[in-house]
Every structure is written in structure tokens, then in C-alpha cells.
């Protein structure tokens, strides 16, 4: 549940917990980029 705080001279603040399905890491991001850079294979030409 998202919680709202306000007290004293503080502006209201909103607090939440956000979690990705899989935690981003430098290695995971590099893998993603490598996958994106793999060129699509040309469709094979079949005679006839």
C-alpha cells in the first residue's frame, strides 16, 4: 500500500516499494544489448 506522510513543516511525501520482476545489473543489461545487436538471419532461399 502506498503511504503518504506529512508532518511539521515537511512537505507531504509518498512512500512506495517498487520491485522489478528481475533486478537490473550491469551484466544483465549488457546481455540485453548484445541480444538486441544480433542481426536477423536472412531467410533461406529455397529453389522452386
Amino acid at each position, binding site marked *: *500500500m*502506498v503511504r503518504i*506522510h506529512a*508532518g511539521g513543516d*515537511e*512537505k*507531504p*511525501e*509518498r*512512500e*512506495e*516499494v*517498487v*520491485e*522489478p*520482476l*528481475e*533486478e*537490473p*545489473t*550491469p*551484466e544483465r*543489461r*549488457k546481455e*540485453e*544489448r548484445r541480444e538486441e545487436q544480433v542481426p536477423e538471419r536472412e531467410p533461406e532461399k529455397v529453389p522452386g
Partner: protein
Amino acid sequence: MRIPDRTGVVLGYRVWRVIPGKWVAPSESLYAQTCHRAWSLTEPTVAYCPPRVQGDPGKPLVRSSPCEAAPSFGCTCGLYARYEPVQETHRLPYVVGSVLAWGQVIHHEDRSFFRAEKALPVAFVRPRGGGGAFPRLSEDKLFRIADLLGAEVVEDSEELRVHSEMEASKW
């Protein structure tokens, strides 16, 4: 176990300080703008709350104990980022970029920033001219840092926004 309020990440923008010089390892070369704490280049950086000493004239020093979990409400701890790209010009050793942030997040929406528990830099804006003592070394170090993080170096704040929004949408 902590139940998330939602899945995904929060996209933020911030400024770092690059420590130039071959005598400082890249892993110790990306610092917060004003704090003496290096950001991790091998995994997400996790916020912590340092013990503080507060001194008022005529009063004894007060030591505050760190929060159990950072960031927490009523404290200033956490990894800071703005919701919008930084438009101000920063010269090396300062560098503008973006982060994916998650975990416990405290939003200061009226003041346009948030504090997060975990964050990973995703892109930096290519520096335009250098200040400081070693601008060339700082720039070389920034590219090494970006390479280790798998982060992109983009040309301007608009490209930073486009690239970062696309990255954030993947998680």
C-alpha cells in the same frame, strides 16, 4: 518478506562526480556529486544511512544512529534522483546521467525528486568541455565507467530522456 506496491523501476536523473587519474581504480571513480561514497560499477548501488553528528552552538554534540533501512521518512538518506532530466550545464568532473531505481522509494513530488533504496546508472551525457584539473583524464574515466556499467553515452538531455525511458520500460 516485503510486498511490493508495484512492479518495475523508477526512472531518475542526477549528477555524479568522476574521479580522474590512473591511480584511482574505475570501481572507485563514480561518486555522488557532494558525498564521499563511490557508486558500484558491478551491481546496483544500495543506499545506506551513515551515522551523523549534529552540533548546535552551546549544546553538546548529538550523535544520531543510522536508519535501519534507507531511505526512510524523516531522514535524508537514500540515493537521490530527479524526475526530469538535469538541464543545467555541468563541466567535468561532474557528469549528468540517468538511473533505474527501485526498492523502497520516497517521492518528494513537490520538490521534483525521489530517494531510492537501489539504483543503477543507465546513461550519461557526453561532457562538453572540462573543468577541474584533469578534464581529459576525467573524460577517459567516464567512458571506462560507462563501459563497465553497460551504460550508454548520449549527446544531450533529450537523447538521455529517450534512451532512459526505453531502458526503464524493459524492467
